[in-house]
């Protein structure tokens, strides 16, 4: 345990994902659910996880500056609409850019209400969600109804998608007209070996069928971590969320920072929305976000308000859906994965002499293993509910490990708290 604690967040992410791959590999060998580590699943996990990741990063930016953002869902909805509109008029990148601008404006509106007018953060967030839903539905009827391919609740198809590209040599990408060998794909097919094909599948998933916006989104994880923890601006943003009085007494312009961070938060959430309407699909549809903003909020909590934690959370929450997209019959194998993970957690808690927790974890493991042998398929509603249940369990069980920004959501008026 000491060793694990001595690692940096990045190293922990790698260690945890290697451990996770090992578990998946074992389960794959036992169950023949080959798709659970195939490159196809990995790359579709990335695609499913990207909007969640962006929404989660939006949550990190907002809460780190001290503003609770329940309006992420609304900002995403705005993102889907403007993304769809921009993609239809000018093309996908324009759609994303337009969405980010619109989302930043909504973020600023949230900041205006909470910072300037000191409104309860949750109330303002709810108002933004209602406004976003109403505005997009209204605008759709004005702009999309009667257009070729558009309608009351959907936009005409966007111009051009992203050519998915494959990396040469690693996953058989093309160089000019020559098709390079698919080395990782070759290893991946040797699926009676343990671990090796799984790792190959993971790597190939990361370098094949990739969209450029996905790469941009993922690179925002280290960028956010760098800006928030390695720059003066980031230090100030965090001081605003931890102890604005202290920051203010040192001359940090708390209000300005809050506007800036909320603009970033809104822009990120809207990018997540635009990803859904311009990249994942090519049209805006009403209700496209389907609560992913709230899953993003969940990953903010699950990821302990850190960008790498949010990344882990979004992959974890995206994985079951991606697996379900690929092939329904692989989903039950996840029950075994859960069982193995619960046993591992049980061993850790046994080492810490927490008997009640160990018992609970082992019983959980037994239940999920038993369920695997009893059922043929996992209802999709359970897959859908997993992120929310996991978040409740984390909040209920690991509250001590969670470190939310101390001042997030608390009313604060600059210049009056001394």
């Amino acid at each position, binding site marked *: 345990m000491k060793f694990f604690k001595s690692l940096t967040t990045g190293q922990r992410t790698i260690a945890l994902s290697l451990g996770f791959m090992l578990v998946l590999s074992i389960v794959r060998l036992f169950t023949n659910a080959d798709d659970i580590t195939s490159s196809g699943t990995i790359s579709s996990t990335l695609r499913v996880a990207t909007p969640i990741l962006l929404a989660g990063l939006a949550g990190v930016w907002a809460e780190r500056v001290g503003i609770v953002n329940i309006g992420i869902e609304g900002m995403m909805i705005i993102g889907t609409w403007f993304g769809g509109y921009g993609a239809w008029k000018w093309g996908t990148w324009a759609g994303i850019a337009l969405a980010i601008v619109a989302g930043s404006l909504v973020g600023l509106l949230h900041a205006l209400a909470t910072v300037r007018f000191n409104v309860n953060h949750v109330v303002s967030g709810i108002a933004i969600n209602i406004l976003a839903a*109403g505005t997009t539905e209204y605008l759709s009827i004005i702009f999309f109804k009667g257009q070729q391919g558009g309608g009351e609740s959907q936009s005409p198809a966007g111009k051009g998608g992203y050519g998915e590209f494959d990396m040469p040599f690693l996953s058989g990408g093309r160089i000019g007209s020559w098709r390079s060998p698919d080395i990782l794909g070759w290893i991946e097919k040797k699926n009676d070996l343990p671990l090796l094909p799984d790792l190959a599948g993971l790597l190939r998933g990361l370098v094949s069928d990739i969209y450029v916006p996905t790469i941009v989104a993922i690179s925002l994880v280290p960028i956010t971590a760098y800006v928030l923890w390695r720059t003066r601006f980031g230090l100030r943003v965090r001081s605003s969320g931890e102890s604005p009085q202290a920051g203010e007494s040192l001359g940090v312009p708390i209000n300005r920072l809050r506007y800036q961070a909320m603009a970033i938060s809104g822009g990120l959430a809207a990018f997540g929305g635009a990803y859904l309407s311009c990249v994942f699909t090519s049209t805006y549809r009403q209700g496209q976000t389907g609560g992913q903003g709230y899953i993003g909020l969940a990953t903010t909590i699950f990821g302990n308000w850190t960008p790498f934690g949010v990344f882990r959370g979004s992959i974890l929450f995206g994985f079951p859906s991606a697996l379900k997209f690929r092939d329904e019959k692989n989903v039950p194998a996840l029950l075994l994965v859960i069982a193995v993970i619960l046993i591992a957690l049980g061993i850790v808690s046994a080492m810490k002499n927490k008997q009640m927790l160990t018992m609970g974890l082992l019983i959980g493991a037994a239940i999920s293993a038993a369920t695997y042998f009893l059922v043929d398929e996992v209802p999709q*509603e359970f897959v859908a509910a997993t992120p*929310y249940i996991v978040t409740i369990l984390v909040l209920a069980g690991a509250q001590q490990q969670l470190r939310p920004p101390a001042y997030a959501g608390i009313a604060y008026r600059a210049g009056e708290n001394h």
Partner: protein
Amino acid sequence: MKSQRLQRMAVTSASSLLAVFVALCICAVVLLITGKDPIEAYRTLFGAAGDTKVLQGSLNRATPLMISAAAVAIGFKMNLFNIGVEGQMRVALLATAVAGAAVDLPAPLHILFCFIVAMATGAIWAGFAGWLKVKRGVNEVISTIMLNFVALSLVAWAFDSFFRAESTTGSVLVKTKELPTSAWFPDIVDRRLSGMFFIAVLVLILFYVLVWKTKFGFQLRASGANPGASRVTGVNPKRMVMISMLLSGALAGLVGMRALLGDVHAYQNNLAEQQGFNGIAVALLGRNHPLGIFISALLFGYLGEASGRLQLIDIPKEITTIMTGIIVLAVVIINEAVKRWDDRRIQHKAALALESVAVAA
């Protein structure tokens, strides 16, 4: 004292009215920008008030809003934010539809039985959030949001796997087994106005009595206003959190009853959808007061009913959703501004009084 309270009430109502007015102005600008005529739009929207059919429809729409707003407001009084009314309502809807169709009772008892089932299931679902808050310190905003989605999935799954009934009318909508007629809540006035309207009014009256006229209500408000001080007087804040969460959930269970017992008589997907969420807006505009809730529920009910008329003159009815969002934002902003202005006024008055005492001495 009396005049001060009246003054405060006048200020409160004025600021709510101002919020509605601001929302109407902003929506007029939105309409203008998108090339629609706002005057014509508002004339159509509010001109519909002369039509008794529209008015009855508005009362029907206001019914669930009053109950869900009361559910939200009872939490607010305790500084608790129950965003989970929607989920609690949904769980209660399915449970009541199933339990109500399974028993055979004489008419008033059957309805009473349905109410009890609905309130109990709603309370249990809200109780999870209460338990998490009291025992594990989990913020109720997050837990009720998460429980909403869990409820959505759970109910969809349970409905799909166990409780679908074969359609007898050949309709494509899948429903649960229909409730026996003894559980149908009667309509009054030409079978147009749901009798549930009076139940909703009763709920608001009881809400008033409970919160403002009982010892429990006093403890609730005191605990919400200053948990530390009220703990010293012997009020257990954790117990108050749990009780208000359970009460809120029980009311949330009743929200869907107009749709279930008074309209569809079976559970189906999308039944009473959004009525739990919309209660939040109603409670905010009504300032958590029964009278305010009553009036704002009527307003939102009317907007919902009359918005259909807008489509006849080619204006999307979704403008009323935008209006709702702006009203919510405007009302809280105006309240904050008024509160600060009021604080400063009182401070100023106190300063003046002190000064005159000092001069006299």
